[in-house]
């Protein structure tokens, strides 16, 4: 019951007749729109959301504990399992952390190869996100188109590192193998094709009045609020805050490349959507430059001991993951096993922003907002 009605009713018997309570709706953990095992307990007044409590942890696998029992090298593949649609970026984050701690100089060619794979992975992630987000809002065809393009990227990964989803792409220090024959040509073909496909998605969504009605002005979060809530990645940039790890804290020779950081204006679902779509185009620019300016040289540093034994100390290193700032806090005690490894997973922290976005909206907007956050529950729960 709205407050106005309640006040109008006063203390009369009418009030008793009009008295309503909120309704509790279990949104998840098995719900098609929660993108995994995420549970939100919604307090509803009719279809309007008045409260939300997030319940997570259904996919907690204790990866941070697990890592403490493995050597630095052996721990690499487990981080692919965090964000399983952006696995290469996770791997880059971890090996980058160890390299920073040990002050390993990664050869330039290896860095460029990493940039190529990273950006391909970012595009793959955004394509899958675009499809699922559109599917949440009812546009099912975009999902299949997005998967179709993603399939090409997966094939490229398979040809390059042998795996499609959980690649274990980088060893500590560099990359394993160079591009196979014909890979660059295949990659360039894909890069030439993708902008047209992106135009098609934008034709289907960006100007569609139904899409605009569903996304414009929904889940608005201002830039200051977003920074205070620690949001990062496209979710933060949708609110117009210029923060991209690739630009602000450059790593892996990202400072060599000329690209823009797309920003939104209102911080609503539409802005978060359009920022990601533009980011794919920027990723293509980076890819183009990286492939064109690929330096020659070794793939692994010359002096690298087989056993990774970093000096005692701590390090925090972050990369621009597909979902936001993906940071690793690593403590070494001088042995060959990490003393502690904490993952600052962007999905986990971005999910905190959901409450601010959905309260006051409708049930259908909860779906739009969860989609616009681009969470992966493997990363939320670790």
């Amino acid at each position: 019951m709205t407050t106005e009605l309640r006040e109008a009713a006063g203390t009369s018997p009418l009030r008793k007749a009009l008295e309503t309570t909120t309704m509790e709706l279990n949104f998840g953990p098995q719900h098609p729109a929660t993108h995994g095992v995420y549970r939100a307990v919604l307090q509803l007044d009719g279809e309007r959301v008045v409260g939300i409590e997030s319940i997570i942890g259904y996919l907690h696998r204790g990866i941070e504990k697990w890592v403490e029992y493995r050597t630095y090298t052996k721990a690499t593949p487990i981080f692919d399992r965090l964000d399983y649609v952006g696995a290469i970026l996770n791997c880059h984050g971890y090996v980058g952390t160890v390299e920073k701690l040990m002050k390993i100089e990664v050869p330039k060619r290896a860095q460029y190869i990493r940039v190529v794979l990273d950006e391909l992975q970012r595009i793959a992630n955004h394509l899958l996100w675009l499809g699922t987000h559109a599917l949440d809002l009812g546009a099912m065809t975009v999902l299949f188109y997005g998967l179709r393009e993603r399939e090409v990227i997966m094939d490229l990964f398979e040809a390059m590192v042998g795996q499609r989803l959980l690649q274990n792409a980088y060893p500590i220090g560099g990359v394993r193998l160079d591009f196979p024959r014909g890979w660059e040509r295949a990659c360039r073909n894909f890069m030439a094709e993708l902008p047209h496909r992106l135009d098609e998605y934008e034709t289907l969504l960006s100007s569609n009045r139904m899409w605009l009605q569903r996304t414009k002005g929904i889940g608005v979060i201002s830039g200051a609020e977003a920074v205070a809530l620690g949001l990062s990645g496209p979710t933060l940039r949708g609110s117009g805050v210029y923060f991209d790890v690739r630009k602000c804290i450059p790593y892996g020779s990202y400072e060599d490349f000329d690209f823009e950081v797309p920003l939104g204006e209102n911080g609503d679902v539409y802005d978060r959507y359009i920022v990601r779509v533009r980011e794919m185009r920027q990723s293509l620019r980076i890819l183009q430059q990286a492939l064109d300016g690929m330096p020659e040289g070794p793939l692994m540093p010359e002096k690298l001991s087989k056993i990774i034994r970093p000096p005692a100390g701590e390090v925090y290193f972050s990369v621009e993951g597909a979902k936001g700032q993906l940071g690793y806090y690593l403590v070494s005690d001088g042995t060959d096993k990490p003393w502690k490894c904490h993952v600052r997973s962007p999905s986990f922290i971005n999910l905190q922003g959901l409450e601010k976005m959905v309260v006051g909206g409708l049930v259908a907007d909860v779906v739009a907002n969860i989609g616009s956050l681009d969470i992966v529950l493997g990363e939320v729960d670790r």
Partner: protein
Amino acid sequence: MSDEEKPGQPEPPAASEAPKAPEAAPKAASSPDPTASPAPAAPAAPKPPAPKPAVPPAPKKWEPTGEVVVTPVTEKLAARFGDAVQGVKSPCGEAIVLVKKEKLGEALAFLKSDADCAFDFLSNLTAAHYPVNDKKFEVVYDCYSVAKRHAVRVKVALDDGEPCPSAVPIWPTANWQEREAHDMYGIVFEGHPNLKVILLPEVWDGHPLRKEYPLGGPKEAAIRADKFAKPGYMPDDLEAAERIAEEGRRDH
């Protein structure tokens, strides 16, 4: 434990070796490797002693190596808080300060509000467990300034059970991260609006990321210690391995 052996050389025949001691158990009650010296270069690490001592020598404190990095921010903090702020060595050139617990809330608020610091973005909050140090726990705040593009790490050392002031009033993003640290290490954050379990089930014994907590939980540790020599799937003894494989085949 075979990880510690030098690679590239074939091992002596395993069959002649006595079954190794269960690894899960000693690792669970783990302490930092006594042989690990804070030497910066890996090749200088001494070889482990050949016979494993029954009682490990007194564990050494965890101490970072490297240099203390001084930046304008740490200078400003030192000027403002004096002795309560202390630089921490970093092996890779990061600005780290250790703040006394009493001054922590003040220091964080200062970092957020001061015009020169302007740390509006708390990128990471976590805790760490050092069972052999004087103060067993550390809470780590990785602050970043979106406007000024600089970073500093603030740490605070705590005893077991000692409460830590919550950073939620300063950075709302600390909310879930403090809940997670509470789950994993049992650190109590004073002034947190909703300090309850977040990742673990609501009824859960212990705090899994503490060092004394065995991998897989106490129950699994008992099972593993009983059945397998290490968290692998085959014993080192060839006959036993063959038997296990054969038993597996017979089950069908």
